[in-house]
């Protein structure tokens, strides 16, 4: 396998082409230099910034998902989580502004969208937040892993992902109660008695039959 050189906070290490930054750090006994959680791209722990030798524009990445490249320089960039904000049923743009007053400070610089490792159109979504298009915002933030990079890069202290989650949870509060059907309790008890017979083999056979018939 091809060997390549990368740097972590200035320290050179050798990596194998095709592996991720995290895999390279593990082999180099430098696992502690970048925090990890899932190593699968969904927890947002392993945020880093990278620079490339060939002058290609660098940027923010998830170290557990980003394959190493020759001459790449990696800098850990852990993002602290921000204070949580209680969601509110029937929220609208005004409610959002009252709990996240910085929502209107967005200067449309686009940095958040560039920074997002999940390709979420963050800036556009901040516009939708200002307009109160919450269903669309909820859809935008479906895949948000809360890495916090969008907040980290925002010079105007807009907190896109905190607002995204707040909007999703607030919409969640508007959901109708589940209709849970009340069943005939006699029938229910009979079925349980049938399925819960003590003898293990018989119980297994009954469960198999029940799967097919669906009732007694």
């Amino acid at each position, binding site marked *: 396998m091809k060997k390549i050189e990368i740097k972590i*906070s*200035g320290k050179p290490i050798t990596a194998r082409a*095709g*592996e991720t930054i995290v*895999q390279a750090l*593990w082999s180099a006994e430098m*696992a*502690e230099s970048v*925090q*990890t*959680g*899932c*190593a*699968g*791209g*969904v*927890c947002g*722990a392993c945020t*880093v*910034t990278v620079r490339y030798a060939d002058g290609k524009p660098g940027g923010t990445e998830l170290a557990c998902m980003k*394959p190493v490249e020759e001459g790449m320089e990696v*800098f*850990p*960039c*852990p*993002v*602290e*989580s921000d204070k*949580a*904000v*209680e*969601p509110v049923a029937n929220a609208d743009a005004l409610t959002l502004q009252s709990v996240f007053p910085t929502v209107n400070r967005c200067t449309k610089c686009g940095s958040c969208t560039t920074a997002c490792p*999940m*390709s979420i159109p963050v800036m556009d979504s901040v516009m939708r937040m200002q307009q109160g298009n919450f269903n669309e915002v*909820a859809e935008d933030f*479906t*895949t*948000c892993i*809360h890495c916090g990079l969008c907040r980290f890069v925002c010079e105007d202290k807009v907190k896109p992902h905190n607002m995204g*989650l707040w909007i*999703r*949870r607030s919409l*969640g*509060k508007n*959901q109708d*109660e589940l209709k*849970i059907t009340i069943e005939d309790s006699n029938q229910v008890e009979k*079925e*349980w008695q049938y*399925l*819960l017979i003590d003898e293990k*083999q018989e*119980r*297994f056979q009954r*469960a*198999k039959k*029940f*799967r*097919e018939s*669906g009732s007694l």
Partner: protein
Amino acid sequence: MEWAKESLEKVERSRETRLHQPAPLPNEKESENILKNFHPDYLGKERTVGVGPNAGDQKFPLELADLLEADSPLPASHSTEPDIETDVLIIGGGGAGAAAALSLEGLGLKTHLATKLRLGDSNTVMAEGGIQAALAENDTPRKHFADALVGGHGENKTDLLRILCESGPEVIQWLSKLGCLFDRNSDGTFRLRGGGGTSVPRVLACRDYTGLEIMRVLKDAVRLSSTNILEEHAAVELFDDGNSTVTGAVLYDRKKGSLVNVSARAVILATGGSGQLRLQDFPTSNHVGATGDGLVLAYRQGCRLKFLDSYQYHPSGACYPEALAGQLVTEAIRSVGAQVVNAEGVHFINEMAYRDVLAGAIIKETREGRGVTTPNGKMGVWLDTPMIDMQKGEGTLAKQFPGLIHRFERYRIDPVKTPILIYPTLHYQNGGVSVDAQCRTEVNGLWACGEVTGGLHGKNRLMGNSLLDILVFGRRAAQSAKDHLPERGPLTLTNLNQFRKNQLKPKYSPVFFPEASKMKLELGALESEVKITESPSSEQTGSFEPPDPFAR
């Protein structure tokens, strides 16, 4: 994927035929043969252990047996002075721990939640496919029960399983109230999908990010609660009162590099699974913290472990590109129509077979030379993802599985057009700490919930039953701890010292981190250092500001 061109052509050519004549489900005899000869659980890579409550009885995978017999990393001189006094200490910040914390809210109890990584960095956040609940018109908790019992080879603890199935709808209601948004049909009802072994569509999802959706909502709610959150605090050992009641835990604060003694009236163990032990060198789908720590801690207190000879190897772990090796490709992909196909383009088994059988069948296929070999020498079979749009309409895959697309995109693989290569990955710890229907372990003062426990799923868990498990039993553990809260007891290391007398291995456990990461907690060294430099070490403990990446 030039290197696989020939095989891919065969897969494309056979698609039309396979679509109309899919392979049948294996019958009982065939399933049994596959399991016996090819499933990693059945290959004899296990042994009994010589110490503790399971000494000489059931078998454990070799890697785990070593850990159960190993010594504690805690220095013998460790002081038992409490640093924190709390009512309930929850260990583990995944779904089970978070559900327990939320259920203790408003009861007037002081609660601490300690977790090794950050809150939510867990197996829970990684769950993709969904969560089961008997919500369909034609479904009942009894059908759910029957499916899970058959799936678990009849070995499930039936009292636990009944509770699980009966609590499904209520848990979905609870999650919805907290603000979880599950996918819905155009008429507003929940979209329910089938999964391997379900007789009725029963799986709710949020795209292929179901665990992410649940975990980020729970995490937010826990942050808003009165729970005291101790992030990057790994539980190293449990305290007992000298009379076999658990009374607290020793935590290792990873940021400060120091040990913290917690005195608690109840301890709830929610440390999850052990996929990172990478049994038999399998890759794993699990998060970095899944190293079976809870099993080791409970075992030293005298808790018996159950069914740990049984692990779930998920049939569809990615096996190419290598950077993604072991990462999960959700079963839901199979339930919406992607077939499992060998190098010759043959649909060698129906993909809705039980997970253990399907995993065995894939291993068989590759062993017998009908697999695809990657440029790195790994073997796998195809998961024919382009079939999904063929059957369910263009755009279905991208819409329902954005996570899959997103992950492969980087490697210029588009699952909409090209099948992906899969091989079984170590996924789920079927067994664990034995608990009763109240989540009480066999030792007073200690409760357990979630993947760390064993019995509920028998010898094979169905998709979507684990997310339900952790929420149902996380909440139950909290309720039971509250109802049976012992008085505060003294902190002693009596059980540990007793265990140490018989200790067999010069190794240390828990291991806390995957071996491959080479991360370690050096507690022995730490203890002596702490004594010398006791006073001014607080500088490093201040707030944790992200450093300017370009400053150096």
